[in-house]
């Protein structure tokens, strides 16, 4: 599963590229070049561009920060529920004075969103229905009511100029200066509240039971967060659309979660990613003229997430793969060293110079394989060749010796192996025929500190369970 899973992810990453390329091509249809348009767009010379870009940036910022709390609390899909649940509120706000008055819509949508979230909690508490069904019902139920209302409104006289359809897929260009005002206020409130109550939000997100024990008003804080989230969702609707706004809450925060282990950095990164996604989406939508903004913002966020998933330094798949490959190479190297040690040991350590052919027999490997192993050892400065010819090809008679660091590492590996065998038989009561395979593996992973503790626990032993000498600190120092 693991391997196929990764292959699928790579395939998806590749799939995402043509879409961006396609989007760029749409832009080229117009007479100016791509770069000219980029300059035109990001310097914000046209007022409509100014509102669209500022709006998208502010939206990305708010959603990134607030979404982080949802993601760490494993409530990601509550964002989805919330965004669908506001729809009837939007319609209601629109009916209030039959125009796209941002404030009326804002109030209606916020009320509907909070009602939706409260209903999820309430149904869950009073029935045996599980959280996912509850969220699904509230999501789809509210949305159904919203659909009913919007279809009615579109039949009504004022429906033609409603612009209600912008709420479904989102068009950043539809943002008005009134919307920007509202957005700025929300962003400001978000920053103030999160900064002011950062430690409280941190504690309730991590362990709400403990927060309660500390005397924190857990319920109030929870609903405060939900209210902020609703605000953010409501103001984002026009730019991103009902269905996709949840992605802005989840995806940038999830990308940030892959890159850092600290909550405050996660907030900063998520806000940055959200803004980046907003800018990308607004720009691509601008290039392509009439395509909706929302999907492009979402795909921008997905792109950032995929980059984090593949290349994140700590948890990324590619660095992980590289680390594992490096480790495999190290283990191969160490196994060669160990074989050389065994060769030397069989001559009571009289032999210090070895023929490659002998090593190949000892390791049960072909001459060719052994040659490349020795080449790797030489490269790592753990062995040196005694052959005068310096060419890349070697023969079975070619001789080599280990350098000081090579001997040191070889002794360490053998020590680890024998020490672990002894630990398993003496301290963990394993039968003696069970311990070798395990030691073959663990010898490459034991750190200095653990070795020291095992030695202590076994009272600095001299012989392994098979009666062989355990190379100790003195002999390692040579």
């Amino acid at each position, binding site marked *: 599963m693991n391997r196929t899973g990764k292959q699928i992810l790579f395939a998806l990453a590749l799939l995402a590229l043509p879409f961006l390329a396609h989007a760029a091509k749409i832009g080229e249809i117009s007479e100016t070049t791509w770069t000219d348009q980029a300059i035109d767009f990001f310097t914000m010379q046209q007022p409509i561009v100014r509102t669209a870009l500022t709006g998208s940036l502010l939206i990305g910022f708010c959603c990134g920060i607030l979404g982080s709390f949802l993601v760490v609390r494993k409530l990601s899909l509550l964002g989805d529920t919330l965004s669908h649940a506001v729809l009837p509120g939007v319609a209601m706000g629109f009916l209030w004075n039959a125009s796209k008055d941002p404030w009326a819509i804002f109030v209606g949508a916020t009320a509907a969103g909070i009602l939706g979230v409260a209903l999820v909690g309430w149904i869950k508490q009073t029935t045996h229905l599980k959280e996912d069904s509850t969220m699904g019902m509230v999501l789809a139920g509210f949305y159904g009511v919203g659909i009913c209302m919007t279809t009615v409104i579109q039949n009504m006289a004022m429906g033609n100029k409603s612009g209600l359809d912008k709420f479904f897929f989102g068009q950043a260009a539809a943002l008005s200066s009134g919307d920007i005002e509202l957005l700025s206020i929300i962003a400001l409130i978000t920053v103030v509240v999160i900064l002011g109550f950062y430690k409280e939000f941190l504690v309730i997100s991590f362990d709400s039971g403990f927060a309660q024990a500390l005397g924190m008003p857990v319920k109030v804080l929870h609903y405060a967060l939900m209210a902020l989230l609703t605000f953010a969702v409501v103001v984002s609707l026009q730019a991103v659309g009902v269905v996709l706004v949840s992605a802005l809450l989840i995806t940038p925060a999830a990308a940030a979660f892959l890159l850092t282990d600290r909550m405050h950095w996660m907030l900063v990164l998520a806000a940055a990613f959200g803004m980046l996604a907003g800018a990308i989406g607004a720009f691509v939508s601008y290039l392509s003229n009439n395509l909706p903004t929302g999907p492009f913002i979402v795909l921008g966020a997905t792109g950032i997430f995929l980059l984090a998933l593949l290349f994140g330094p700590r948890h990324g798949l590619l660095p992980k793969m590289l*680390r594992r490959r490096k480790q495999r190479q190290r283990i191969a190297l160490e196994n060669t060293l160990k074989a050389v040690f065994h060769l030397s040991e069989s001559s009571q350590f009289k032999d210090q110079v070895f023929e490659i052919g002998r090593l190949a027999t000892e390791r049960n490997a072909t001459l060719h394989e052994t040659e490349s192993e020795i080449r790797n050892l030489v490269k790592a400065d753990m062995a040196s060749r005694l052959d005068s010819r310096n060419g890349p090809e070697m023969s079975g008679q070619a001789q080599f010796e280990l350098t000081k660091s090579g001997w040191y590492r070889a002794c360490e590996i053998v020590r680890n192996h024998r020490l672990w065998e002894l630990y398993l038989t003496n*301290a963990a009561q394993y039968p003696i025929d069970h311990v070798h395979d395990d030691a073959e593996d663990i010898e490459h992973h034991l750190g200095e500190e*653990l070795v020291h503790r095992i030695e202590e626990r076994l009272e600095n032993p001299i012989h392994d369970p098979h009666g062989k000498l355990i190379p100790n600190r003195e002999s390692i120092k040579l």
Partner: protein
Amino acid sequence: MQSSPTTNLSSKSAAPLEVHDLTVAYTKRPVLYGIDLEIPKGSIVGVVGPNGAGKSTLIRAIMGLLPVSSGWIKVFGKPFKQAVTRVGYVPQRESVDWDFPVNALDVVLMGRYGRLGPFKRPSKADKEIAMNCLEKVKMDSYAKRQISNLSGGQQQRVFLARALAQESDLYLMDEPFVGVDATTESAIIEILRELQAQGKTLIVVHHDLTTAPEYFDRILLLNMRVVAYGKTEDVFTFENLQNAYGGRLSILSEVALTRARKKFDGDTRDNVGQ
């Protein structure tokens, strides 16, 4: 201290359960390590050990629910999949959703499903068997109750009845005594003895050290590896218990953890945690 597996058993006389050099690791947490085990027919084996010792993991590994890193398991001399109808299972009570819309009889009937095969529905005879099993655990009067309306002990008895309905030869029970009242506990143990008298083999995960020697005639002391296994009187020694429960093997778990991290993450740090 450790029984080594007898070699070359024909499937006729094969032991109900044979485990050889079994290692099981979750992605990050290695849980069982080089387990050797052979369980003779007709015994009640208590699996005892501290929290996180891998008791449930052993049961789940036997049933093939977890990937095995190395070693093998044989049930009546065959891989589990081929001996499926001969094994009955009583999971931990927390493992299922008690709000599920089924009543006690439905749950017991599930024990018959393995024998039915595809496209067949439980017959009248199956229902009678299920009722009989409920009677055996003295739950027949609750047959039509939805399962969330039963007490913890009653739920456990329903699970036991379901295992009886499976009519198996080897029973795997995961903590059947957790959260049950004293009457249920003695009722369960009575049924276990009856099953044993019929020549069935039982493997019971148990956490209560005080009752273990009384209930089981063989004990498997587990703590990541087999600390001791054999007749109860031989195994239940102070030294063995200390070996299983004392913290003297912290190095074993730490090393195992270090290895797991390095293997799966390619972690380069020397040793992780302490």
